């Protein structure tokens, strides 16, 4: 098992108390698996992604553990995590466009970064060049300043750099949100290719865009209001969703070929609950068309079949 997350709870400290942004996540990601994490804004997926690599100033790990390749990651300890960052755990950020120091040539920045992490730039250079070529960038990118590259090019540079040390875990947070559709496709395909070539072992792709996940991910994890709601293979989630939330989510996606007169796009009525004082019981209860009395007790995230989990009383085990 590559990544094992056990009952992870990460809260944000605020003046009014702890916001329980991630409230009990337990899952595994195998070697070579690309797991997508989907959900609406504020469901906790970004918190999850961040907690795996670098905590925000206001975040605190309330409970739980993260184990990568059999070693427990010291996610609460910023200093200690440095040893794992870049080598074992890496991130491709949402803001790839501005992730590069504007006043340094790219090659020089990479060399300084590598040296500071105790890696020889000379030795890594041939592999770096190979990977740049792989994503369609020529060598002279290294001589350029970030301002001379297009957005897509910068995205590719960041992807190559983040995976240069062949990390065991790659977290891609909202990778495609800032991109146009054709670049989205290219980037998504790049993720898969990196996995296929063994540059990364496990990948977690965090996004609100289910359609990307369908193309790229092996498994999909759906989150809502800080809790895990459903997990399964990409095909299962999109074609046979079990949890009411997932069903509504899939149903709200536009279908190719469906014309406006025949069907209207529907969203899910209501808003997610406050995570400062979260409701007891199932957090989706207020918006769920199937909710009844028993939903006042929080449903556990149970295994329905091999690799299939859901947290709902209404789902037949």
């Amino acid at each position, binding site marked *: 098992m590559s990544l094992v997350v056990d009952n992870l709870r990460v809260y944000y400290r605020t003046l009014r108390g702890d916001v329980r942004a991630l409230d009990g996540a337990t899952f595994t990601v195998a070697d070579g698996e690309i797991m997508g994490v989907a959900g609406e804004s504020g469901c906790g997926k970004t918190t999850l992604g961040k907690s795996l*690599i*670098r905590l925000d100033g206001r975040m605190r790990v309330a409970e739980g553990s993260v184990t990568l390749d059999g070693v427990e990651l010291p996610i609460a300890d910023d200093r200690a*995590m*440095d*040893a*794992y*960052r*870049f*080598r074992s755990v*890496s*991130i491709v*950020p949402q*803001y790839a466009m*501005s*992730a*590069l*120091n*504007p*006043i*340094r*040539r790219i090659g020089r920045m990479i060399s*300084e*970064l590598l040296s*500071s*992490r105790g890696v020889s730039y000379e030795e890594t250079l041939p592999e770096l060049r190979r990977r740049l070529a792989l994503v369609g960038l020529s060598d002279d990118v290294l001589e350029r*300043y970030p*301002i*001379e590259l297009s957005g897509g090019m910068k995205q590719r540079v*960041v992807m190559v*750099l*983040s995976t240069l040390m062949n990390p065991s875990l790659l977290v891609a947070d909202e990778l495609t949100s800032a991109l146009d559709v054709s670049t989205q496709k290219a980037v998504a395909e790049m993720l898969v290719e990196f996995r296929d070539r063994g540059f990364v072992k496990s990948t977690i792709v965090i996004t609100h865009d289910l359609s990307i996940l369908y193309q790229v991910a092996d498994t999909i994890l759906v989150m809502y209001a800080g809790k895990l709601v459903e997990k399964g293979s990409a095909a299962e989630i999109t074609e046979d969703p079990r949890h009411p939330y997932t069903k509504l989510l899939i149903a709200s996606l536009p279908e190719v070929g469906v014309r406006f007169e025949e069907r209207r796009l529907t969203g899910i009525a209501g808003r997610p609950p406050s995570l400062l004082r979260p409701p007891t019981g199932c957090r989706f209860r207020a918006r769920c068309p199937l909710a009844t009395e028993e939903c006042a007790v929080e449903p556990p995230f149970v295994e329905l079949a091999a690799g299939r989990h859901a947290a709902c009383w209404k789902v037949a085990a």
Partner: protein
Amino acid sequence: MTRYLARKSLLYLLTFFVAVTIDWAIPRLMPGDPIDGLISRLQADSTASQELHGYFTESFGLDQPLWRQYASFWRGLAHGDLGPSIAYVGSSVSDLIWAALPYTLALLVPAIVLSYVAGNRVGAMAARRKVLDNTVLPFAYILTATPYVWLALVLAYFLAFKWGIFPVSGAYDFSLQPAWTWEFAWSFLQHWFLPFLTLFLVSFGGWAIGMRNLIIYELESEYSNYLQALGAPSTLVRKYAYGNAVLPQMSGLALALGAVVGGALVTEIVFGYPGIGTLIITALQNRDYFLLQGLFLLIIIGVLVANFVVDILYVVVDPRTRTGIQGS
């Protein structure tokens, strides 16, 4: 890069033109006749005053049509001729300015450079360490809120008057003449120190605050976050943050020059230091319009030149301006 510099040059030329025109125009728009003032100072009796008035008016060219005066002003400028002084009768404005300028530069240049460098360093340090931040920062705010005039007075009062460590006024001992001797140099330094310190302290405050804010901003930028997410040590992150923060600080340098020059002027007055400042106050008190015009022109040219120098330095420091793409 050439586009950037060309743009700046155009700006400075325009500014120069506008400033010079203002400089030339104001005396002529003002009520009162400078020649009247001159004559009353010379205390000529009433019968001769009419002829004297005509004589002076003609010799100063004030009877010419305005556009002619304007043209000859520019012509004079090209020859470095700024006219005669009314307050110091017999001396030309340019001579007076050349005599006073070195003293002012001796104050300004070290004060600006040292306060900039020291302020930036301290500001960067304060941005990293909370302890420093809580002590240095309030102090810096107080410094930058202090009027130059008053700090000069306070320093003069305590360090010169009360404790006699430094002399109170002048640029050198009265018994000495300016010369390239050790004796003169030492005397000069003693007299120079307090005015220099005044300029240095106030400017230092401003730079420290500015740099501290910029560093904090850069440390929270996305490239900083990315580097830290990749486990880069804080030395590298700080190095990059500093490099990026220096850029707006450089632009700020050009803007702040005007303020420091103003500060130097009043500091000189407090210390009786024979630089441009003392010259200005004499000109003001004596309504010496030509001297004032010349001084204003000097200040304008000086500030524009300094701005241009800073712009060139900026091109060196910010690689984005060199790539031919419009940077910040």
